[in-house]
């Protein structure tokens, strides 16, 4: 635990794998930028690893004023013990007021370990972060400019806002894909601070024998249009319809958890709380009932079209457009309408829309 430090910086953890940054730290930087401006303090990225100094430039272009670079051969592969020690040492030395991690597999392994070592609070899986004031319900104590950590809880049925009053830093993990990724600002400048790494005498309790990553086959996060099939599609064969509709729209294919569990589509395609969180321009949900866990992963879509034969399906509650009917008939009709582009414009005109 560190003392409350109002001048402390805002930090984000720069997760990298084999010398490559994922989108998560860049998303964190864009939210971190907002928080740091509001507090009037610098935004810094913490970058542990080996031979990762090249990544500092990208972090600065995406909003970091400073990069704390901890480069050491012992940090060549992620391990809880070594990485947590590096991050904890940096926190103790620089006393940031906020530290954000991606809620990735790695972030959800590292952040709780760091919080436990520092004896500070940690809020998991935040979907939004703000700066605001807090009045304690019992003591009536008022504290200004705290990090408001907003997250779904209780299976997504409530939204809780959590604060961390006295035992700083204020730490949170942030769900992948829920914060906007701002484009890099060419010419932005910042400083890279090379930090001493003191891992001598730390006997690592884990040896990595084998590590296999396959690149994700689908890029749901980057897709402008997503067509998702749920249990209502009925079979893996019938899921062809979902692929067809996505193809004519140039979109990506998603699946609800039920569809993935039933083997209609691979886990890479899963949208929702335990899959990928998406915010496309258009989300077409076919035969998806719309359980809270699913909605949590897609309700930020700009436009939602629901196709379902159950007019009471919860998905219609958040949809902008709905078709109540059999998806086996509706999807081919939509494909036909899209292919017949000219006649579609005609239809729009006759409908008095243009």
């Amino acid at each position, binding site marked *: 635990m560190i003392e409350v430090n109002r001048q402390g910086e805002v930090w984000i953890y720069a997760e990298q794998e084999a010398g490559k940054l994922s989108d998560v730290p860049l998303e964190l930087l864009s939210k971190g930028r907002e928080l740091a401006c509001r507090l009037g303090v610098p935004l810094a990225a913490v970058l542990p690893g080996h031979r990762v100094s090249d990544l500092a430039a990208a972090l600065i272009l995406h909003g970091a004023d400073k990069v704390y670079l901890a480069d050491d051969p012992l940090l060549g592969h992620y391990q809880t*013990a070594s990485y947590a020690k590096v991050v904890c040492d940096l926190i103790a030395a620089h006393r940031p007021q906020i530290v954000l991690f991606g809620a990735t597999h790695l972030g959800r392994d590292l952040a*709780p*370990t760091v919080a436990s070592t520092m004896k500070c609070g940690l809020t998991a899986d935040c979907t939004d972060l703000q700066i605001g004031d807090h009045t304690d319900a019992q003591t009536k104590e008022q504290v200004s400019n705290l990090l408001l950590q907003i997250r779904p809880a*209780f*299976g997504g049925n409530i939204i809780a806002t959590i604060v961390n009053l006295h035992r700083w830093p204020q730490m949170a993990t942030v769900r992948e894909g829920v914060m906007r990724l701002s484009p890099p600002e060419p010419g932005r400048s910042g400083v890279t601070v090379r930090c001493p790494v003191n891992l001598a005498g730390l006997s690592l*309790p884990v040896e990595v024998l084998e590590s*296999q990553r396959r690149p994700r086959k689908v890029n749901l996060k980057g897709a402008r249009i997503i067509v998702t099939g749920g249990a209502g599609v009925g079979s893996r064969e019938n899921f062809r319809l979902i692929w067809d509709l996505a193809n004519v729209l140039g979109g990506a294919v998603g699946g609800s958890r039920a569809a993935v569990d039933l083997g209609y589509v691979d886990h890479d395609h899963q949208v929702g709380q335990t899959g990928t969180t998406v915010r496309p321009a258009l989300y077409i949900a076919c035969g998806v009932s719309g359980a809270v866990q699913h909605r949590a992963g897609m309700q930020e879509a700009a436009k939602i079209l629901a196709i379902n034969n159950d007019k009471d399906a919860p998905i219609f509650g958040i949809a902008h457009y709905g078709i109540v*009917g059999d998806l086996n008939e509706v999807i081919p009709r939509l494909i036909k*309408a899209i292919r017949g582009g000219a006649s579609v414009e005609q*239809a729009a005109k006759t409908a008095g829309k243009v």
Partner: protein
Amino acid sequence: MGYNCVVCIKQVPDTKRITGQAMREDGTVNRAALPAIFNPEDLNALETALFVRDRYGGTVTVLSMGLPAACEILRTSLFRGADRAILLTDRRAAASDTLATSYILSCAVRKLQPDLVFCGRQAIDGDTAQVGPQLAEKLGMTLGTYLETIELDGRHAKVRRAIGNGFEVIKARLPALFTVVESANVPRPAAVKKTMKFKKARALVEIAKAVEGDLPGAAPEIRTAEVKRRCDALEAKGLLITQWNLDDIQADLAWCGGAGSPTKVHRIQSIVLAGGDYKEFPPTDDGATRLIGELIEDHTIG
């Protein structure tokens, strides 16, 4: 020989079946208003521990911190093959966040000196996945998250970890704590003989309550004597669920409950489905054409 395993288990409200107003005004959950279940991934953790014991020898102790009602999942664990069950219950532990919870659990686990600790990856009420890693840190044990398979060789475990878009195989030094994912195994069902035997297993708090019901108006010393008699009788048959409070595990109260929890609830909001503008189209050629026309017109597609 063999490995002494501790499995941390939690009774959770079935969040898929939230009914009525289950939230109190201060933002905490009124657990009594919801059906309570064995946290799903904790069952996978229990199965992993039973697998280790069956294959390499040793013992499986289940530990649950919670209300007396958590005896239900402790008994369920005994039905499935656990050797010993411990209820860790204390009003002073209420309102603990993950940091305070992991501290309290660490005091209890330390008393048991296990070689291996297994936790479910996360509980479905909070979905934080924090208590496992924090418990490992507090105990100074090796941490391995997202366990799918485990093999043991002397003082090392070879573990396959599921890490989203791939996997990793690690060799971890014991003592170690692993969090277990759903894909690790299919938990075994309750065994009939064990169920017949352990359905009578009780913890002190349950016995005291039963005595209160059986001997209404009896003098306190008579009740105390009756509670002791029943406890002794159960213990003789191996049916007494161990019960600990914070004093039994020498927990420092400054790190427990609300006082030991750095995080506070600022606000709770219920989810309200807000669709805003909603337009329905008929499932016909004409409906499809008009819908696509509208999406092209506002540049959503095209």
